[in-house]
Every structure is written in C-alpha cells, then in structure tokens.
C-alpha cells in the first residue's frame, strides 16, 4: 500500500474538480474498450502529482523499526524474488539480476563513490561523459511491457487457401470454370484479415495513447553537469549524475544520498508496507539505502548521486520480474479454445467423413475437396470471434461505468469465474488514510466515528478532560489545510502534513470548528518537532485566555514515552496524581487499542508557571530551557486506516457468491487481523488457533487445527512452509490473513491458490504487487493509489480503489459467461442447418440447397447483431448466490449445449429450411422426388432442356438461377428460424415469459436487423450474380414461420421439464 501518494492525488483530484477546472474524465464518459482508458487515469494522476508537490505522508511515531527492517529486508526480498526467478526464467536474465541487486554503494564513502562512478559531487559529470554513458546504458526509462495480442484463429485461413487451391485445380482442368471458389476464398481471407486488423487496432490504440501521453509530460530532473545546474528530462539521467531533489519530486532513479535537509521519503510503493519508512538522517554520511526511483519524495531537499538507471533500478527489476512472470491464459481464452477444438473437431471429422463418402461414391476428388470446404465453412462460426470481442468490450464498457476499467478484454469474464480474491489491505479494503478511531480519557474508551465523512461523533464531549485533550490535539500539530479550500468539505480538504497529523487535524476541525483560528489565538512560541529518538512532539503556546499569563506546553508521542514524562493524570477535568492503579488503567487501554491494530498516541500538557516563565521568556528548543517532565497526562487517542464502509457488505456478497477472500498485506499481523475482522474477512464467530489457545488457556500446539476456521499467517511463517503445507493451509481454513508478506510471497500465495484449481484475483497497488498481479488469473490494480507498474501488470483497474467495485465486476463477469453461453448456443444452432444441405447434396444428390457465400452472409451478416444482443440479456436468477464455476468442470460449451444446439434445434432448423427449399423448387416445377439424384444432370452445362416434374424443360442458366433462388429461400428459412432461436436463447431455464419478452430491447433491434439485412440481400442485391441472391417471392418468407413457432414451443417444453424436475435425467442432459 502507499497511503501518502495516492491519497494526495485523490485529494488533489477532488480539489481540482471542485475548483471548477477541467475535471478528469469520469469513467462513464470513457470510450469503447476499457484498455484505452487506462492512460487517462494514469496521466491524470501524474499530472496532478506535479501540481501538488508539497503533499507528503510520513509515519510520525510507533512502528519505528519498519523502516530499518526495510533496508535489510528489502535486499532479502529481492534476493527471494531473484531466486523465484531462477526457477522461472532463463539463465542470463537471472545472472543479471543477481549482479545488480547487490547495492553496496551506501556503504562507500563519497570519495570511493566518486572514484567508482568517475564523477565529482561538486561539478558533476561533463556533458560528454553523460552523453557517452547515455549511449552505453540507454535512457533512464523502464522498458514498457510487451504485449502481444492473442487472436483466436479459426481455421478460416486454411479454408481460404483450400478454396484457391481448388480453383487452381479447377482452372487447370477447365479454363472457364466458375469463379465461385475464388470469391469464397477472398471472402474467407478478408474475414481473417479484418479480424486480425480489428484485434490489432484495439491493441495499438491503447498502446499509442499510453505512449503519446507519457511523452507529453516528461519528468524533469535537476542535475549538476559541467558544474552547472541543469534541468534535463529524467530519461537522460546517467549513472554518476548528481541530482538535486526537492519536496514533492519523484525520485528519478536509484540515487545515493549525499546530503539532505529534513528529507523524508515514502518508499512504500516499493515495500508494500502501510507505514512508509522514515529515512531522515541528519548526517548525510549515515544515509541509509539508496533512494529508489519512483519513490515519492520528500519534504525538504536533498542531493544524491545516480547509481542505477532505467531497468537496472530496483523498480526496473521488479517490473521486469513482473513481465517475466508468464501470464496465465485467461479462463475465457481457455474456454474459447476448448470451443474451437469442439467446432474444429466436428468440422474436420464430418468433412473428412464426407470426403471419404464422396470419393467412394465416385465423385471427383476435386469435387470432394469442394465439399470439404463447404462443410468446414458451414461448420465454422465465422462471426463468433467478432461477436465475442464485441460482447466482451460491451461488458467492459459497462464495467468502466461502475469504476472497473478492464485493460485486457478477456479479463472481463475472469472476474466472474474468480473463486479466490487475494486482496491487498491498504486502499482497497481500507480508506487509505489514518482516522481517529478511539479515544481514552477519564478512564474510559470512547469510539469515534470512522466513516468516510466523520459526521457522527457521539462520544461524551462535556468532560473537562476532553476540553484539555482537544486543545492538545489542536495545538500540538504541524499539519495545515492548504489555503483556498473554504468551500471544500472538511474531509476532502487537502492537508499539508503527514498521515497521523492529518487525521488529528481533520478530527479536531470536525469537532471544534476552525482549527486555524484556535491556533491563531494560542500563538505558538516554541516547538520541538517529532524525531525518531525522542518519539514525541512538543510545542509551547500562549493561552487564549487573556487573564491567564501562563504558557501552555503540549506534548504528544508514543504513549509509553509520554507517560514516562508525566506525574499526574487528568480525570474529569481534575489533575490527580498518577498512581499505580491509573497507570494500570492506562496500560490496559493502551494494550486494548493496540490489540485492535490501531496506532496509539499519548497526549499530555503542562501549564508553565507564570512566575518562572514570564511572557517575555525566550524558549530555546536546543538547550531545552523548560521542564519536560512531571507533566499532566490527559489521554490516549488511537488511529487506524479504517475499512471502507462498503467493504463489509462486499465481502459478505463475495462469501455468498462462493468466493474466498484472502487478505495479503505487508502490514503488521495485529492490524491486519483487526481490519480483517472488521470487514468480515474473518467473520465474527470464527477464531484462529491462537484465539482458541488464548480462550482455553492452553498452548497453541495443543489446539486442534480443525476447530479454527480462520488463520493469520505471517511472512516469516510462510517462509518456512513447504508448498504442501501451504496447500493444506489454503484448503483447511476458509478465512486466511497473510501479514508481513514480501512480493515473492504474494507470488507463492497466488501460485498456491492456483494449485487448488482456483481462479485467483489479486488486488494491489504497489510496485511490489506487480509480479503477483501478473501471476494472478486476474490482476486488479488500484486506479488512484496504484503505481504505474501495478497498473501495467494488472488486467483491470479499479478507478475508485473500492473493493465493492470488484463485486459488481464479479457479477458482470458471471453474467457475461452465461450470456456467452447463450450467444454460442445461438450461433452453433444454425451450423447444422448450414451443414445438412451439403451432406444431403452429397448423399441424395439434390441441387445444392445453400451456397458457401450465402452461409457467410448468415454467419457474418444476419446473425451478428442478434448474437451481440444476447449480451444485453439480464440474469435469469441471482447469479451472486451460486458458487463460482469450476474451471475444469463448468465449461462454456458443454455436451448438453452442443447436443441440444446441434441435434435438437439445429436439426429442426435444418428441416424447416429444407421445407422452404422444397417449396420453392416444387412451385417452380421440381418436386422433391424429382430432385433426388438430379445433381449430375442439374450441374451439367450441356443439358439445356432438363425436364422437371411437369415436363417443362430448363436450360442450365435457368437452373442456376433457380438454384440461387433456392439458396435465398434456404437462407430466409434459416433466418426466420434464427429469430425463434434468438428468442428461445434469452433464457436457459426460465420461461420466456418469466424473463420478459420485451425487457431486452436490443434483442428486437437484432431481430429487426436480421430481417432488414435479409430483405436488402434478397431485393437489393438480388441482381448481383456474385452474391448468389435472387428476389424471392414474398410468400416464401413465411413458409418457415410454423417451424419457428415449433422451435419455440419445443424449447419452452424443455425449460418447463427442467423447472419441474430439477436434478432429473432431463435436467442433467437438457440444461446447458
């Protein structure tokens, strides 16, 4: 998590929108595919960052060792990462990593550094040196992750080639052979090319926007070269450059600090810890680990030497680790592949079967090849890929409106099949800001309102102790509101100050009113700021009571330190001596609040006697010429990053949807557990092994693991686990919290989940999360707080950083899966109606009932909009109340779907279309009986007086024309029945009337489009001979209508039996 930066950006963003400036694009307005929108959020963030440089966020007290462990741990972690990589990736890469992770530079003296990098800290590099290095090492920029679009290819390309080969042979045999197969080949090739271009276009569009925007706002760095300060684009930094950093800058590269002035850095994007590490050192030579590129920086200024650039920075290495993690195929891609296998299997096996039949029936081999092509074309749903793409992008668009920005279209469905969510804590589950949660004074714990707007503070404010406490909170605080935000609600105001002080400032502003005014009335005369040795902060103020000439000294800090300095305690406004029992009460409260995972601060004050400290007294904070002991302890106040109010509900929804929510955080286990409990990741009545041990007062080892439902596992424990143990852990406990985890461990957890055949979603925002985001089946990055690396690695971006958005995403994902089933069932059905003509043509020798080009007009013409329309269908039942689908068992295309579509509706449709065909031929003079085995005569060019059933004689051209009329009739027959098919596909279980015939208006658009396209083809393009359509007599359009009705009735009966006899044979075999 990165509390500081994201928060600041969000505040800034709100600020800007409210200020009347051009607001950032609301997600709803975003265009088309989700992926192209990503840069907007990204850029907006970057842009705002530069405009709000003074925002920072640094830990003030407590958890002091985090920063230090980070130094050592950091290396440990990356070594771990590297080891992981050893397994994952190729040799040379890992070697490179190993070499470069060893950052020893901070141990070197400046002289050694200068020697090592051939630079001078005063004059910097010369321009020529810099240019050389730049040329050698490349620009200081991360190599963007390469993304290759995965196009599902149908065997159309082969079809096209086959067609041309067939034409070639035909042409070789007979120079005047018809151009039909050439047309067909061209159309098929065109389909392949267009689909490819479509996918490429989508991909390129998003990449281009990304690229163009990152160029538009180049990061600048102030660098010393040739003894001069120069501003250069950060990309041109080279190793050995001396750079100056000032407050608000992003660190442009890995640098080694040379000198600082009150400089702090928030490295949390790298470490993933909630609490940003404090890196201030008065002595520059004591500077800790080099600062890392991308860390958001500091208040104050600093000078440093660049020691690593571009992909060789720590961040670069993590990023490349992330891109090295193989992206799993998305479940929907697997499903579509499975589906393609089925279709291709059916097509090829029927094709080859009939090729053999045709050859053994003494057809020419060439003819047989043409049959083969016809069968394959009839079987391959050419339009389906485009349909699926459009369907997915429609859903992506819909999700973007709900703040889920989908980068990778296929990820739309993945969320729906998700069975485990590994959620980061900070920013996703929590509000990503410290908030006052509890107060302790007068020996009592009070609860403060932690909701997003703080509106409802109900604790007792009448006590005198509260009056004193509130004064300390207000005065002993360096944070300030940025000016010019009068109209902004308090909770949304931008604050200059760190997280804790911000929390206190807002808390007091809400309760007491204008804090600035109070501070003005109590003028500050002296101040000792917080530092890590003192662990307290102190300031001395004049009082606002004109009659009281005393100074008021206020102090806050780590509770135990503060208590040490106190000799009295205030109870109900009265000072009382601090005895053992009150100290005991203090400790109980401190432990209790600490046990809630909250950060506790102690507050005390002292009125300096007016005689010793007259108004003119000059306080010196360096010599401390005033007392800092025997103060009066006033109270405790605890803060937490509170859960978002929407999260508990969302977690419950996930639960009921059968999704396991696992918390994975870099934070302290106690905090993690507390938050997990408050959001319901650990439900109220479940206990961990430790809880049970504590309750029963027995050692942890004696507790039966079966009794515990929940588990809190730290990174240290995880490190010692074998994969089998992890598997066991993941299966045994339904509620798991992982705390203090490293990026590598996140990866291990994700892999563990995936071993359970689970579809894993990972949420995260830091750079450290990016490998796990990439490894996950679906990586979800935070749009506001998320780092670019995380967003790059993710498949989806939550624009509002809100966990609840994931739930809507799951819902949409499940809906789209259901609807894709319907779409595919709809699309597959007509394949049989397209296939049967060829089979009957071959076996019974009828004149060809439908041509391949006509088939393409169904697949790519009339059927496209209706199949997309099915994506708009509403859910049949509460899809959030069922288990997530099993990756390997609940297939998109299962046997019942294929059988029902192919053999039930498909055959009925084929029959209906044949009726139309026979009707047309019969009315023209050829009765069905006369058509049998007519093929040879029919197709002979030399026969120009072929006799029909009425004794009439037909020339070859007349027959050809009649054949085209037959195509058109067959086409119309299929089209009419596809309307019925479309209507029945609206539901899989419910009756159409339960679903509502008119609720989905798009279906009717689809039906209209079908009819209109058919009318245009028949009457508009009937004269274009290459298309093989003719003007059909109006009455033929209605021949298939009874069949369409029959199909609809049949399906209603099917659904009725499914509803009547759930679990029966019928249900199992007829429900798809």
């Amino acid at each position, binding site marked *: 998590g990165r509390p500081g930066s994201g928060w600041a950006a969000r505040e800034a963003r709100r600020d800007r929108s409210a200020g009347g400036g051009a607001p950032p694009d609301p997600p709803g307005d975003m265009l088309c595919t989700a992926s192209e929108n990503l840069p907007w959020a990204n850029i907006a963030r970057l842009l705002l960052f530069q405009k709000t440089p003074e925002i920072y966020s640094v830990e003030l007290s407590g958890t002091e060792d985090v920063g230090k462990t980070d130094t050592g741990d950091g290396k440990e972690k990356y070594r771990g990462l590297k080891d992981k990589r050893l397994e994952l990736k190729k040799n040379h890469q890992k070697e490179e990593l190993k070499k470069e992770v060893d950052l020893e530079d901070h141990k070197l003296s400046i002289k050694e550094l200068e020697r090592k990098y051939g630079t001078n800290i005063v004059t910097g590099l010369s321009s020529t040196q810099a240019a050389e290095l730049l040329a050698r090492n490349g620009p200081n920029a991360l190599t963007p992750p390469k993304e290759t679009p995965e196009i599902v290819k149908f065997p159309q390309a082969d079809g096209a080639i086959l067609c041309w080969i067939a034409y070639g042979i035909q042409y070789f045999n007979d120079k005047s052979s018809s151009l039909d197969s050439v047309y067909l080949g061209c159309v098929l090739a065109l389909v392949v090319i267009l689909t490819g271009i479509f996918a490429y276009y989508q991909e390129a569009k998003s990449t281009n926007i990304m690229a163009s925007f990152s160029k538009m706002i180049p990061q600048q760095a102030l660098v010393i070269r040739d003894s001069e300060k120069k501003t250069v684009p950060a990309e041109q930094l080279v190793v050995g450059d001396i750079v100056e950093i000032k407050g608000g800058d992003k660190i442009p590269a890995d640098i080694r600090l040379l000198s600082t002035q009150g400089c702090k850095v928030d490295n949390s994007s790298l470490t993933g810890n909630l609490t940003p590490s404090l890196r201030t050192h008065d002595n520059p030579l004591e500077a800790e680990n080099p600062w890392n590129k991308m860390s958001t920086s500091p208040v104050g200024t600093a000078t440093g030497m660049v020691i690593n650039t571009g992909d060789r920075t720590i961040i670069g290495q993590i990023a490349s680790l992330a891109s090295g993690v193989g992206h799993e195929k998305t479940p929907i891609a697997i499903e579509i592949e499975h589906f393609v296998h089925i279709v291709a299997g059916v097509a090829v096996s029927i094709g080859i079967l009939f090729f053999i039949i045709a050859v053994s029936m003494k057809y020419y081999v060439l003819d047989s090849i043409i049959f083969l092509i016809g069968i394959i074309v009839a079987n391959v749903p050419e339009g389906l890929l485009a349909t699926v793409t459009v369907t997915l992008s429609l859903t992506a668009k819909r999700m973007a409106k709900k703040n889920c920005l989908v980068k990778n279209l296929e990820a739309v469905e993945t969320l729906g099949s998700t069975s485990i969510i590994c959620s980061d804590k900070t920013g996703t589950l929590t509000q990503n800001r410290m908030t006052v949660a509890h107060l302790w004074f007068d020996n009592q714990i009070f609860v403060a309102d932690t909701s997003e707007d703080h509106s409802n503070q109900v604790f007792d404010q009448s006590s005198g102790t509260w009056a004193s406490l509130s004064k300390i909170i207000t005065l002993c605080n360096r944070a300030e509101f940025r000016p010019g935000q009068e109209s902004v609600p308090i909770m949304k105001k931008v604050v200059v100050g760190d997280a804790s002080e911000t929390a206190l400032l807002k808390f007091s502003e809400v309760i007491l009113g204008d804090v600035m005014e109070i501070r003005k009335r109590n003028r500050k005369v002296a101040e000792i700021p917080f530092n890590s040795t003192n662990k307290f902060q102190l300031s001395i103020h004049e009082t606002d009571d004109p009659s009281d000439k005393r100074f008021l000294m206020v102090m806050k800090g780590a509770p135990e330190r503060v208590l040490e300095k106190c000799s009295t305690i205030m109870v109900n406004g009265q000072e009382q001596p601090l005895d053992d029992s009150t100290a005991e009460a203090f400790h109980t409260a401190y432990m209790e609040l600490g046990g809630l995972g909250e950060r506790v601060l102690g507050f005390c004050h002292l009125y300096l006697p007016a005689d010793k400290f007259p108004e003119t007294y000059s306080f010196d904070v360096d010599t401390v010429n005033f007392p800092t002991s025997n103060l009066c302890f006033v109270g405790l106040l605890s803060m937490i990053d509170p859960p978002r109010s929407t999260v508990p509900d969302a977690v419950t929804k996930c639960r009921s949807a059968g999704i396991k929510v696992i918390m994975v955080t870099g934070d302290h286990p106690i905090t993690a557990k507390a938050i997990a409990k408050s959001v319901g990741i650990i439900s109220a009545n479940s206990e961990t092994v430790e809880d049970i041990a504590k309750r029963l007062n027995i050692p942890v080892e004696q507790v039966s693991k079966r009794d515990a439902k929940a588990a809190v596992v730290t990174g240290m424990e995880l490190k010692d686990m074998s994969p089998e143990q992890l598997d066991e852990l993941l299966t045994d406990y339904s509620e798991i919290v992982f705390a203090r985890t490293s990026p590598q461990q996140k990866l291990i957890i994700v892999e563990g989940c995936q071993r359970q055949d689970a579809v894993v979603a990972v949420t995260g925002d830091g750079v450290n999360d990016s490998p796990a985001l990439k490894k996950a089946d679906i990586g979800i990055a935070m749009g506001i707080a998320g780092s670019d690396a995380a967003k790059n690695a993710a498949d989806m971006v939550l624009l509002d950083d809100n966990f609840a958005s994931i739930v809507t995403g799951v819902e949409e994902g499940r809906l789209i899966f259901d609807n894709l089933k319907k779409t595919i069932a709809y699309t597959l059905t007509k394949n049989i109606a397209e296939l049967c003509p060829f089979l009957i043509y071959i076996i019974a020798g009828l004149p060809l009932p439908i041509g391949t080009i006509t088939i393409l007009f169904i697949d790519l013409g009339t059927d496209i909009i209706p199949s997309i329309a099915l994506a708009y269908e509403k859910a049949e039942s509460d899809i959030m109340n069922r288990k997530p689908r099993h990756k390997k068992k609940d297939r998109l295309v299962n046997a019942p779907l294929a059988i029902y579509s192919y053999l039930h509706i498909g055959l009925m449709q084929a029959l209906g279309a044949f009726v139309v065909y026979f009707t047309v031929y019969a009315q023209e003079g050829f009765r*069905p*009986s006369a058509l049998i085995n007519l093929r040879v005569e029919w197709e002979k060019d030399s026969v*120009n007086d072929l006799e029909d059933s009425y004794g009439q004689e037909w020339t070859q051209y007349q027959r050809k024309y009649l054949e085209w009329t037959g195509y058109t009739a067959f086409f119309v027959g299929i089209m009419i029945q596809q309307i019925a098919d479309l209507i029945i596909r609206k539901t899989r279980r419910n009756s159409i009337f339960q679903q509502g015939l008119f609720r989905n208006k798009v279906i009717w658009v689809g039906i209209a489009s079908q009819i209109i396209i058919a009318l245009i083809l028949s009457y508009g393009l009937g004269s274009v001979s290459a298309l093989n359509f003719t003007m059909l007599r109006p009455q033929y359009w209605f021949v298939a209508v009874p069949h369409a009705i029959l199909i609809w009735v049949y399906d209603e009966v099917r659904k009725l039996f499914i509803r009547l006899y759930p679990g029966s044979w019928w249900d199992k075999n007829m429900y798809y």
Partner: protein
Amino acid sequence: MRRQLRSRRAPAFPYGYRYRLDDQDEVNQNYLADEEEEAEEEARVMVVHDLEEEEEEEEKEEEEEEEEEGQGQPTSNALWQKLQIVNEHLWDPEKRMSLARTGQSWRVMIRPFAHSLNFNFNVSEPDTWQHYVISLNGFLQGYNDSLQEEMNVDCPPGQYFIQDGNEDEDKKACQFKRSFLKNCSGLEDPTFGYSTGQPCILLKMNRIVGFRPELGDPVKVSCKVQRGDENDIRSINYYPESASFDLRYYPYYGKLTHVNYTSPLVAMHFTDVVKNQAVPVQCQLKGKGIINDVINDRFVGRVIFTLNIET
C-alpha cells in the same frame, strides 16, 4: 409413385408403351453415355424410386402444416386440392406468366444431343457422325407416324388447341408426325444427311406449362451465320416448310395430364455448308415479342452452335 399416378390418370395407354417412352427419354438425354454408364443409369433410376418413396413418407409425416403441395397423394383428396391450388400458381392467366417466366422467354434446344454444341464430323468416317444419327433416331422414336396416329389426335392447324375442363383431367395431344420432317425425318435418308455432309439439326422449344406463343402468331425459326461470312451456310431447308411451330401444339398442360404431348420440331437441313471450316450458326426464334438476345442465358430464343464438316 409416379407410375401409379399415371396409370390411374392415363388408363388408355398400354403400360408397355409408356415405359418405353420413359426409357426413351433416358436414352435421349444420355445418348453419348457408353453402355456401361447406361447400365449404371438404370441402377440409379431404381434407387431413385426407392428414395422417392422414403422422401414422400417423410413429407407426409412431417410437413402437414406446410402449404406446399406435397406429392399429390392419390389417397388424400385434400392434398390433391392443394395441388390444384398450386397449379393455379403455376399459371397466372392475367399476367400471362408461369413460374415467374414471361411468355416471351422461350428457351430452345437442338437435337442431336451432344455434350457440346460443336458438330464436328468427317463425312467419310461414319464413326465421327454415327452417334448423331443414333441420337436423332432415338429422339424421333416417339414421333413415329404410327405411334402418333395411335395416341394423339389430329387437331386443326393454325389455332391453339385449348382444352378446358378440370385441371386434373387428362388432355389430348396433337399429332406431330415424324414424316412432317421430310428429308430430316430419317425415313428416306436414315443418316439424316450426315453421310453426305448435309446434316439435319432439329430445333425444339423448351416446354413451358401453359405458355402460348404471343398473340396467335406462330413462332418462326431462322438461322444464319453468327460471325463471319454470311454465305458460309448458303442454303437451309426448313421442315415443316413454314419453319414455324404451329399454334395447335400450344398450350402445354404439363406432363401429369398432357401425357403424350410431343414437342413440335423444326428441322434445319444444312444442305450446302462450307466444308472443312468451323461455321458458327445462330438459330433464332422470330415472332412478335419474342426475346432472343439475352446475354446471361444463351438459350433464350436462340441457340448457337458450330458446324465443322470435314470431307
């Protein structure tokens, strides 16, 4: 099925005769097929009938609601009436249209039947023209004078032979005797002039149910060189001499009722064609409103063939 139907509807004709006619058709159309293929053809015909019956069964079961005429089930009067309704569809007297084809669009075809419309033969090599003679002979079997006299009536020339009455009533057919073709009848010259390099080509109009040549004007045939020297043909004798299709042979009522209908013919006797070179000949129908210049369908109102007679 078809046979049953016919025997019911045409009891006057001896079974054997009709059978022969049927076979004749097959022979005509597949004249060039060698004997092996012919045998296959026979086999195929048998298969056809089997399949046909199956097909009809299916139709009966599955497509009751469909307003298609079905097969004219002899057992079902209702279906039979449907057939009549559909028959009305076939011929629309007001628009003078049948089966979506206008009265002007007569297709023509020639005999002898060959796979191409190039008549190449060498006078002195009977093998090169023998199959033409066999084809013509076979084709004209149905026109034998005796047969025509036995089966058909001699109706008055120069006017339509209109037979009112029920749709399903059997219609009488007018005689077209082989002897009308004179020198091309094969009666005097059994080689139809091929042996002397004066080939006969028979021209017939494709049968269309209900059609009548426009406005009582008989349609005439006229042939000329399509491209090249007009004089390459020099002279053509037409039989019957009027070179026209007499009105009495129209309208055609369809083979279900008009069982013994024999298409009228015009024989073209190319008596003095230039030898040893390909002569493209175009024979056109001429008459009021007759269309004979459609590009897509090269058989509308005309037929183009080449004569290449070697000596």
